[in-house]
């Protein structure tokens, strides 16, 4: 009996020792520490809409659609698992996971990212090559790499038209190689 009472006293002591621990949330914020994986944010200045994130996303919530001269990149964050694979896949470091976690909403459309980018079409056949930013990046890389290439007139051709152009004019290929 005594033993029983002692164990009950010990249990009471555990509670007493702890005191009041309840956090003052929501009256005061309680932000996560460290590199929290919260709501993904797209840096639209850096993004060139290559689609690496769409390939990496395990919840398959990122979609890319080409319509005329516009490429639409959209994120349906309702089913986002906050895994960060899109961030890891992005070559431009355009996706960051913010520390925002209070994401509740009555209108689920709020949970989305919608971005539109201009496309470049092949100047011969009209096929989509990539976004304007991708093409600009390639041009820039070609000009700044060692040794640099000044003639980037073939950048706005699609792969098959580029091949055709080189076959008809092999001298060009040599020139580029040199």
């Amino acid at each position, binding site marked *: 009996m005594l*033993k*029983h009472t*002692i*164990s*009950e006293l*010990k*249990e009471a*002591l*555990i*509670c007493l*020792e*702890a005191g009041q*621990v309840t956090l003052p949330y929501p009256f005061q914020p309680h932000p*996560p*520490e*460290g*590199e*929290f*994986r919260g709501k993904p944010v797209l840096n639209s200045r850096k993004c060139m809409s290559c689609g690496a994130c769409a390939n*990496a*996303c*395990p919840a*398959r919530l990122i979609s890319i659609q080409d319509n005329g001269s516009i490429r639409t990149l959209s994120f349906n964050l309702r089913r986002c*698992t*906050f*895994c*960060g*694979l899109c961030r*890891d896949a992005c070559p431009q470091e355009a996706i960051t*996971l913010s520390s925002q976690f209070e994401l509740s909403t009555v209108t689920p459309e709020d949970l989305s990212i919608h971005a539109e980018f201009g496309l470049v079409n092949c100047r011969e056949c009209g096929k989509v090559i990539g976004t304007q930013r991708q093409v600009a990046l390639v041009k820039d890389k070609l000009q700044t790499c060692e040794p640099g290439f000044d003639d980037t007139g073939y950048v706005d051709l699609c792969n098959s038209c580029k091949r055709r152009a080189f076959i008809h004019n092999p001298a060009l290929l040599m020139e580029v190689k040199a």
Partner: protein
Amino acid sequence: MAVPAKTIQPADLKINLKNGGLRFEDFRQDTLVASVSKEDLVEAVRHVRDDLDGRFITSTGTDMRTVNGNYRISQLFALDAQRQFLVLYSDIDPQSPDIPAITGLIPGAAWAEREVRDMIGVTPTGHPDLRRLILPDDWPADVHPLRRDFPIDERPPAAPENKVRINLPPKDASLFPIGPFFPTLEEPTFINLYVHGEQIVGMDYRGFYNHRGVEKLGDSELTYHQIPALAERICGICGFVHSSSYCQTVEKAAGITIPRRAAYIRTLLLELERIHSHLLWIGLACHFIGFDTLFMQAWRIREPVMWLTEYITGNRKTYGMNRIGGVSRDLPFDAFERITPVIDKIEAQSAQVVDAIVEDASLRARLEGAGILSTEAARSYCVVGPTARGSGLDIDARRDHPSAAYDELEFEVCVETGCDIWARTLVRIRELLDAIQIVRQVLKKMPSGPIVAEVDEITPYQVGVSGVEAPRGEVIHYILTGPDNRPYRWRVRAPSYNNLQSIPAMLTGANLADAPISVGSLDPCFSCTERIQVVDRDSGNVRIYRQAELLEKFLAKGR
């Protein structure tokens, strides 16, 4: 640490059977692969069980029709003493899709064989219970989702005539339904107890309300590198165990060695997960027997672990750190300074709680002698984890199938012989305190260096098996690598899968009031705190117990 027994070599597998016997196929690291014709299967399984002391893990079916024209049914065994795995497969001609059942030899294979029938459509002949196990009640009879010609996003029209019929209770007994929404189970699940007054005389089970199609997703839609995120979401409490186990399985099949630092980081997180999971269990177990004070206090003690993992990994629960070849992010620069005080505090506070539990006479009276699972029953149902160790079985995947950094750490395999709920409680308490010591060792020995290894292309059709000791028991992942950057077949065996099968043995003859805590003592990840009783009114004279009544009944016993 125990020294492993002499490795079983391909030659040891040989036995003479009528139809060719065991044929050795592959031996890679610790995994032996052998094939056997279906006519010889039962004898071969007997040989593995009796002569090689193999412990059955699970059966898995693979649709290999596009590769070699057959279905392949594999039986997985653990050879604990030798630290090996054995995969025994039989190729089944699609013209006669059946295989002799091994449930007669190994009762713990009952669900796995029913699952093979549901998912692949190969019938285990001679199986005592061929009702549906996994698929929903309104699923059409001849559609098997793990066949490769079944598209993942197909949702076939309802066929309500296939509803699983609950077996009727024996004469004079009444049906006492628990579920499908019930607090002590991971998933909404439906347990039907047959009772004579207060005594349970039998039961029937209908589960798998949580079947989400994880394995199909893994072998038809996601890639190798996306699956860790999926594996982590198999279970919200021990998700990191699943993603670690998956990554190890692929690493084994592809022959990748991960950096030691990555192995230590995995171990650290696995043990932090064990700490929070065991504290969670202690709290909920107390809640089930009406001891809410300790429920609140145990969860209070647990909370700093959640903040710690949030700080280290970026999320409280789904850590998202595992990648094939290692981990994706390093520990923060001040991780050691952050972890140590939290661990110290948890150790001190857990010691107090443990002290209170172990000395508490009423708690002990409530749990001792209840929910008995004998050592023989535990062995025959192939239970794992604290459930097995509470019944005197000395198995622990951390020691028997070492992975991550467990081979360099010292820890105790906590075995109790009480076979009751009290024994399982003691096992978990000892493991909780032990896990804290493991975290300390990990911090002490943490090597520096890279955290992820280079991963080349993964050769198709390689087999990998790996186990990790989760808080609930060993998690086993099996993989057959595939050609299009994803597994051809990925099989997950969670510990509760086997542990739940032992409920009939545990409850038959028990008092009704012991049922919730007995089921809870298996720690099948708790999901919901509330319950309702829904009864199939068609089955006639069924008494409907309301939640309040059941709770009252059950609290009364605790007083």
